[in-house]
């Protein structure tokens, strides 16, 4: 197995080549304005090492290029490159007073909302239709969308995670009227909770054009670099999706950068259960690994002010990093950071801002810049700053703990030098080789997942879980996993109050290796 993992962060683009389970080469380059150039540069510099040649004038076979990017979430947060969306909800006469976009921030709704259509349809919790789908109304809506020049449609329906039939039929009817439109069905994004699922679907639809263009550009960068390998995009949950599927569901890559770091940390350390601290230039993310995957946030997550509910890692971010401003009197570390200007603004690099990196240079922990420029910082001062950084880190770790005992901590990221070898409540601090490129490593080793989250009736608990597992397995295979390698990494069941017939909601998630092409 030979894979290239690339993580496009706000500051750096990291790339690694992994061969037979070993990191052969890691590189770090500044992220380019247009994202793609940085990727092409990374691939070219990997190629220039000769590592990708088989020694007989040909290229070695690469099984995949896995890219993680913050491009899509940044578009939402910064309100850039968004497409106008037609919202089609199937569920009338229910919820008419709370139409699509009803709880969005006004500025974002004004940018994204291209119109709202609500027609009869949807299901009950037990699979009975809530109302028959009004197909004529869907077709009429599609004609109106077309007349308005809309090109992206978000469809939602009551209880569609249990039965997506109405959403799928409506998507067919819409496509018949507007063959070029991109259609997002909320059931593809998962969870129970109509507004939050619908919101995720609408955000996804708003990213349709950006997603198409970005992924086309990634594919072009790979082609231009001369590497013949399929493109995969990393997802929030530490898995990858094939480019064609990822193009359809860009919201699934929203938090993939942080997830990749955690997965990379697990891989580089060989640990499956541990706390991970990823210290970047500006922020530090703390999360917990369970079975080699980040623990998931179970509740509503706001993205750019929009309430959503889908697979996201449970992370705590604090303003601590290698570029954090340091004030000595009174002592303060972060949350402001010099960010990508570190090599210009830091004291040791001839700038005027004292940063945590300068402290590390003065203390001899890092060999960078001009140590003479920070010679006035004595050992006691450095010690105080390190202690403050450690205190901030420790507080975040403690908040993320789910058990009272001591935890093992893996420290990764370019700013990992801020994490000392001993911390209270931590049994062992592990620094790993290539830890500064853990995110790219996490991208390179990502697997494919499948999930099932639905309500089962009149089954034993064991029967319901087995049924859910079967569905999750099929979905993983459909997403590109090798069936032989599938394993269940999450299984959760919950009986439902008030519902008759021993209803139980089961959520199962499985992962497997990418099937060999």
């Amino acid at each position, binding site marked *: 197995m030979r894979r290239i993992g690339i993580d496009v962060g706000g500051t750096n683009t990291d790339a690694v080549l992994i061969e037979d389970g070993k990191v052969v080469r890691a590189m770090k380059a500044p992220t380019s304005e247009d994202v793609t150039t940085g990727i092409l540069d990374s691939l070219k510099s990997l190629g220039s090492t000769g590592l990708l040649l088989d020694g007989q004038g040909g290229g070695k076979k690469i099984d995949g290029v896995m890219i993680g990017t913050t491009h899509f979430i940044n578009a939402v947060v910064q309100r850039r490159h968004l497409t106008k969306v037609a919202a089609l909800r199937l569920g009338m006469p229910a*919820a008419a007073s*709370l139409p699509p976009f009803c709880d969005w921030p006004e500025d974002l709704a004004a940018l994204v909302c291209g119109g709202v259509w609500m027609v009869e349809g949807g299901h009950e*919790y037990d699979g009975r239709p809530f109302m028959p789908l009004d197909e004529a109304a869907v077709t009429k809506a599609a004609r109106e969308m077309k007349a308005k020049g809309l090109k992206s449609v978000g469809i939602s329906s009551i209880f569609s995670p249990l039965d997506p039939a109405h959403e799928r039929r409506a998507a067919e009817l819409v496509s018949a009227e507007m063959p070029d439109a991109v259609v997002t069905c909320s059931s593809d994004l998962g969870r*129970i*909770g109509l*507004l939050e699922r619908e919101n995720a679907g609408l955000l996804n639809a708003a990213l349709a054009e950006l997603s198409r263009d970005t992924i086309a550009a990634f594919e072009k960068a790979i082609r231009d670099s001369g590497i013949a390998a399929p493109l995969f995009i990393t997802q929030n949950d530490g898995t990858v999706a094939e480019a064609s599927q990822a193009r359809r569901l860009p919201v699934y890559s929203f938090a993939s950068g942080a997830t990749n770091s955690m997965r990379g940390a697990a891989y580089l350390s060989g640990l499956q259960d541990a706390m991970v601290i990823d210290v970047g230039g500006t922020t530090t993310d703390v999360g917990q690994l369970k079975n080699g995957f980040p623990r998931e946030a179970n509740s509503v997550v706001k993205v750019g002010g929009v309430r959503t509910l889908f697979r996201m890692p449970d992370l705590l971010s604090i303003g601590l990093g290698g570029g954090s401003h340091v004030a000595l009197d009174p002592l303060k570390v972060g949350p402001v950071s010099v960010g990508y200007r570190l090599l210009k603004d830091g004291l040791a690099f001839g700038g005027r801002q004292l940063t945590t990196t300068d402290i590390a240079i003065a203390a001899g922990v890092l060999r960078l810049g001009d140590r003479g420029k920070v010679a006035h910082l004595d050992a006691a001062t450095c010690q105080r700053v390190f202690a403050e950084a450690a205190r901030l880190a420790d507080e975040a770790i403690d908040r993320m703990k789910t058990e009272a005992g001591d935890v093992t901590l893996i420290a990764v990221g370019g700013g990992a030098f801020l994490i000392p070898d001993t911390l209270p409540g931590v049994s062992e601090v592990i620094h790993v080789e290539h830890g500064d490129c853990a995110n790219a490593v996490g991208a390179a080793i990502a697997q494919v997942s499948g999930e099932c989250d639905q309500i089962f009736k009149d089954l034993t608990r064991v029967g319901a879980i087995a049924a859910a597992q079967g569905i999750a397995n099929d979905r993983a295979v459909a997403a590109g996993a090798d069936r032989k390698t599938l394993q269940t990494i999450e299984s959760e069941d919950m009986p439902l109050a008030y519902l*008759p017939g021993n209803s139980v909601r089961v959520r199962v998630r499985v992962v497997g290796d990418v099937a060999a092409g």
Partner: protein
Amino acid sequence: MSSREITLDEIESLAVGAWVLGTGGGGNPYLSLLNARALYKEGKRTQLIDSADLADDAYVAVIAGMGAPLVGIERLTDHRVFARAARLMETHTKRRFDAVMGMEIGGGNGVRPFLVAANLGIPVVDSDTMGRAYPEAQMTSVAVGDLTPYPMTVVDVRGLESVIEKVPSWKWAERVGRKIVVEYGSTASTCQPPRTGAEVKKWGIHGTTTKAIAIGHAVREAQRTHADPVAAILAVEPGKILFSGKVIDVERRVTDGYLRGVTRFDGLDDFRQSVLTVDFQNEWIVASCDGEPLAMTPDLICVLDSVSGEAVGSETIRYGQRVTVIALPPPAVFLTPKGMEHVGPRAFGYDLDYRSVFSA
């Protein structure tokens, strides 16, 4: 009749406070809040009055949503359906309502009277019949007072309408009502048996809307100023901190149509070395510290997110959450022997004599 206009900001606070008073159940008020925002945006306004200002012969609607919160978050909430439940009762009893109140202040039902008030143009009475959330119709002050348990209307968004004309007891009202709600798809809007002004004055639990607004306001202000939200609640309510810790286990099962189970918390800070367990039946019922009962129904047991101060529900509480558990004093009507029969620990199957955490 003296009344005062309620601002949308107060309804925002009400939603936060009602969720705290939901004591783990009652459903998150968020969707009802969204409806209130939509109504206020249309220019609708609502008034709040004291029960003391009701005429003895005033006719008061008692509003409640019934069903599974999980269905509620798919079908959402539509203010017009709650208005229809009240209208159907008016048509059926051939009498116009003068005011509306909630059956339960805890959870989504704490906000719903305002949705009806905005539609019908009548004021909301600052009273309810639970002072918190409870799972069943007989767990109310009006049931403790043996007031008439009928008629009741049950309405759904598709136009299904039922009237329960007569039942012999509140327990029957619960049984029959529940069957209809399940057939509707486990969510419905109801108008409970109407009350006269005199009945509300005698049997209502008073000032609960104002209380919920005050609690919510305290939490929101604390969030805004980065102050301690739990301390902020205790500054406006005579409550007690029972425990502070982290969820280490949640065990859930459904029996008789209820979500029952136990949540275990490991102590932090002042409570290190201790373990708290809280039993729930939709709502938090009995809290025990290191095996000893510490607080129990009808005392209000509220599990709050330690950082945000917002309530944590029994359906959504999860492993690892950091919470502070507080108790708030119960309504006096439940402290009588008759009140205990309806909502004391034995009404929930616990062989415990009620001992208030506030009497110690």
